[in-house]
């Protein structure tokens, strides 16, 4: 073992005779070592560079959006061109309302389908097809959900409406809700399920009393992630809900068949306007929207830590 601890330069003895120990030293003069160091540096630099846009976006939101932030933004209506002040209270209400409609549609269907997928056997063709359809829907361009809702709701009812917007958003939420719920139900320890069946519970009772309650945190994670995505979507709303400068609730009556404002469409419309006030409002709305989306995301991630897994 002396050979290993011997000073560099001295000839090794014993079993290591004839081995060039100096040649094993790490040296930057060797091309392959130098290559490794250079590549490590390159990859680190590219990773840093990839994060620059994130910090730039967050900084601009805090700076330009935060400057304008005040309570009146949440209570007032969008201003006319060249008018000072104003807010986007109706857009916040519209976004929440349409995401609500989408949630009411997609969550029951998603969870019910997930219970079927999780229970179905490996050889079930329906389950395999539905899973594949879900994966394809995940990558479905959001604008096509808008095109579909335009054809199926706007053209049929003859008017732009929050319902059409909600239907478009629900199509985008469905795969996330369904696939995460399936994973969550599958993650419930098999012994809990077997114990329930052993006590004479029907599969339905097992689902309602054991699987769903145990998988609830995981299911809610999926719902929150889907809500976060839907809240930020613009493309499905531009020509289904359109935009409106007024409250969806007028004179105490809720009119479901009228164009409705949303934060995302407000940002899109106001970003391209040549008026300083509108651009400032777009930035403030972007800040509010990102905070909303991040809050939903964080809630989802917090819930996922409470999931019990086998």
């Amino acid at each position, binding site marked *: 073992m002396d050979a290993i601890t011997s000073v560099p330069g001295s000839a090794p003895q014993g079993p290591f005779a004839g081995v060039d120990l100096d040649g094993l030293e790490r040296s930057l003069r060797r091309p392959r070592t130098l290559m490794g160091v250079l590549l490590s540096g390159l990859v680190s630099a*590219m990773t840093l560079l990839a994060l620059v846009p994130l910090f730039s976006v967050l900084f*601009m939101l805090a700076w330009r959006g935060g400057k304008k932030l005040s309570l009146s933004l949440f209570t007032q209506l969008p201003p006319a061109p060249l008018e000072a002040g104003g807010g986007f209270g109706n857009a916040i209400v519209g976004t929440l309302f349409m995401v609500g409609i989408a949630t009411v549609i997609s969550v029951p269907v998603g969870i019910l389908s997930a219970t079927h997928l999780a229970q179905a056997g490996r050889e079930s063709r329906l389950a395999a097809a539905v899973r594949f359809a879900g994966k394809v829907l995940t990558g479905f*361009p959001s*604008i096509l959900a808008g095109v579909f809702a*335009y054809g199926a709701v706007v053209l049929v009812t003859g008017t732009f409406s929050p319902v059409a917007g909600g239907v478009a958003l629900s199509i985008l939420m469905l795969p996330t809700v369904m696939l995460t719920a399936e994973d969550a139900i599958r993650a419930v320890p098999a012994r809990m399920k077997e114990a329930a069946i052993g006590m004479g519970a029907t*599969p*339905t009772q097992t689902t309602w009393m054991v699987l769903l309650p145990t998988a609830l945190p995981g299911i809610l994670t999926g719902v929150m992630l889907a809500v976060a995505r839907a809240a930020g979507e613009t493309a499905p709303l*531009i*020509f289904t809900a359109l935009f409106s400068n007024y409250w969806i609730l007028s004179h105490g009556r809720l009119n479901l068949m009228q164009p409705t404002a949303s934060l995302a469409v407000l940002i899109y419309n106001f970003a391209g306007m040549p008026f300083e006030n509108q651009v400032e409002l777009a930035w403030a709305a972007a800040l509010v929207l990102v905070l909303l989306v991040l809050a939903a995301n964080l809630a989802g991630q917090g819930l996922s830590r409470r999931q019990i897994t086998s």
Partner: protein
Amino acid sequence: MSHETPIARPPSRGQLLADAAFRRLSQLSAALVLAVVAFIVLRIAFAAAPAVREHGLDFLTGRVWDPNKGRYAILPEIWGTLYTSALALVLGTAFGGAVAIFLSEGFLAQATYRVLRASGLALRPGWSKLPDLLEVTLKNLVSLLAAIPSVVYGLWGLFVVIPLVRPACNWLHLKMGWLPLFGTDLSGPGVLPAVIVLAIMILPTITAISTDALLAVPSKLRMAAYGLGATRWETVLGVIVPTASRGIFGGVVLAFGRALGETMALAMLVGNANQISVSLFSPANTLAALLANAFPEAGPRQVGVLMYAALVLLGITLAVNVIGSILLQRASAAVEGAR
């Protein structure tokens, strides 16, 4: 006698009926998901049918979009969609792949550990968790990129990216304008800013799927490479990346599908110009941006034409997504086999 009722007992008739009903209901609901996908495709196809009959295949090869004369064609939009997506894919794959290697090799944790060891803090209770903590934070930051809505990226692109790249672009055009790539100057919205923002938006997809693929490579392969005397980078480039390549490729294809269908950032940044140009700085248009811009004010005749355009977009993205999903499924099966 009720206290003698055992906890475990066979289900009653009513419970069995309820069970059958609920199971049928959940099966129907799963079938509904399939039906929804089919309905979406058919609804768009039927709405497009009159326009398909009227314009035929000329719609895909012509260059004129003139509502006043009733002449419509979308070759410039198809070109713009493929061109911006391909460029964004090159940029996004380079950076996304680098971040994936950085994450899967644990560079950050190792560097932090080395710094801690040098300062003698590595084994202190509070500090020993720092390397892992930083690693998780980095992962969360990358996924945060995916959480930001695309319209916010569009806004950021308009007010940050365009002013930032414009001087450099115009300098390039001035000095090297003979290259077709720099053939025009950037007067505002254009291909390059759209591509930059698009690349940022697809980076998290590529990174997430590639990181998973790299981490799924069995560690015995890495050990064998080290045992043969390979350096870390020889192992990464010679063994790990080739083994994970199918998974990475699947992720890249899915990211391509996402880029093709991305709407808002492009509608805001690409310039909505109905022209075909290879210049990075000229305005262009994409299918999704065309839909976003033309649909809100479309009359009944134009709606049919736009549905045709939507059908083309649907066909392209559906094909790309199905290919990507199948590739990913095969890749994970192959890695399972290598275990």
